[in-house]
């Protein structure tokens, strides 16, 4: 048994008649909104999204992407398929080919279906490449595009990030 103890919550007593008559508690409530009004005039809590963006935390999990070896510029992925196995939505598919150096393998094609990806970050944790993980959670979170096929991100997109969607008709949001 823990140190928690049960406490019966006291219910506030009914209001005395003079408080009821002069609407005391109503006016108190209205003073709260008025205080917010006087401040909210200048300090809204909301953010004007397309123009203003909140800073992302370093650990933010956006859509997964691939990266090269930071020094040699080689592909880090060694097709251990750990990400493919752990992915809860089965959105990763890897085709492999032997590495040209004759040692190990490398992905011929690496596909992440961004439509299915749930950004859980398990793939980045499971990644078995050396010295850093090949697949990582980027800070991309906007995915609007003009076709479903464009969400099946393949190696070009996984390495270079998301190109801006082709210019459509009409203005971009927010002028």
């Amino acid at each position, binding site marked *: 048994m823990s*140190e928690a103890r049960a406490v019966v919550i006291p219910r506030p007593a009914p209001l005395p008649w003079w408080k009821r008559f002069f609407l005391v508690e109503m006016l108190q409530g209205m003073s709260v909104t008025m205080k917010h009004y006087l401040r909210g005039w200048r300090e809204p809590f909301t953010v004007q999204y397309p123009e203003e963006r909140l800073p992302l935390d370093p650990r933010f999990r956006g859509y997964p992407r691939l990266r090269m070896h930071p020094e040699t510029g080689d592909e880090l992925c060694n097709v251990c398929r750990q990400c493919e196995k752990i992915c809860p939505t089965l959105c990763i598919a890897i085709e492999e080919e032997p590495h040209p150096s004759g040692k190990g393998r490398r992905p011929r094609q690496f596909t992440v279906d961004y439509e299915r990806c749930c950004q859980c970050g398990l793939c980045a944790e499971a990644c078995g490449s050396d010295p850093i993980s090949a697949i990582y959670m980027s800070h991309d979170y906007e995915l609007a595009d003009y076709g479903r096929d464009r969400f099946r991100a393949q190696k070009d997109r996984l390495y270079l990030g998301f190109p801006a969607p082709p210019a459509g008709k009409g203005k971009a949001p927010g002028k």
Partner: protein
Amino acid sequence: MYQTSELEINMGPQHPATHGVLRLVLRLDGETIVEVKPVIGYLHRGVEKLSENRGYRSVTPLTDRLDYCAAFAENHSYVGAVEKLLGVEVPPRAQAMRVVLAELQRIASHLIWLATHGLDIGAMTIFLYAFREREKCLDLFEGYCGARLTYNALRIGGVPQEFPDGWTEALRRFLDELPTRIAQYETLLTGNRIWRLRTEGVGVIDARTALGLGLTGPTLRGSGVDYDVRKYAPYENYRDYAFDIPVGSKGDTYDRYLIRMEEMRQSRRIILQALEALPDGPILAKVAGRIRPPKGAEAYFMTESPRGEMSVYLVSDGTDKPYRVRFRSPCFNNLQGLPTLSKGHMVADVVALIGSIDIVLGCVDR
């Protein structure tokens, strides 16, 4: 001379006040409820079956999607069940960190409850005030695990990462601010005559009936039963913290409201204690890379989610995938209380009661 006939109306699945895709079939006599029949299943995704085809580690992100307002609590139940299945001891530091996050989740979840409950009864400003504070909770979760809603914040055997630099200070700042915010909500609602008229004596349920219906969480504690998993089956290191379990005296909507408000304060108290005594040490116990519990092993693990007793039952068949995963969701059971609670009340009270039992449809339908 006059004959009245009963009116049957459909509330939902698309309705502003049913918190998702709940459908209620109401039989009305004028404005008075004769019968309420909840029809569920509009958000059924088959999570239990899906889980049977995933490795033990891959199920955690699926549990995020059950109760999406309190994803951490679902993660916690599932991960705890796997740990119990494997007999893994979670390191003390990870336990304390889990408590911090679980209680932060409780605050965030109660804030969203307050927001929607207030909005249902017509107080719309409280909605945005509560969301403002919830936003800060979500920022903290984002800083910790990188996601704002579907956290996937736990791993089997502990927690995946340490609190980042400056995180505990940010959490303390939030907790310092919280009591004044709660006081503001209380000024807006607790004493307000309209709020009291709308909640007092509405949906009274006595302890016996509530227990019989399998209600848990604040919905049960409103009727005066001090059942709280944190007290009666302490998990993690909850037994080290001193905190109160608020219980109600009348079992009406107002009691349930007061209890949840008090629980936010108690959660704050627990977090402060946990931060004070955060032990050093590892945060992840050693677990085999490939999780294969022995054949026939089973585990039942329960946690106190913000909505009540959330438990997970696991059966292993010796492979690396669970044989059966069963989620006992508090929302599903609490929803069973709705017809009893709303009998004889008016249409407007049904809305207040849906808010009062605090359901999330993802959790009801699974």
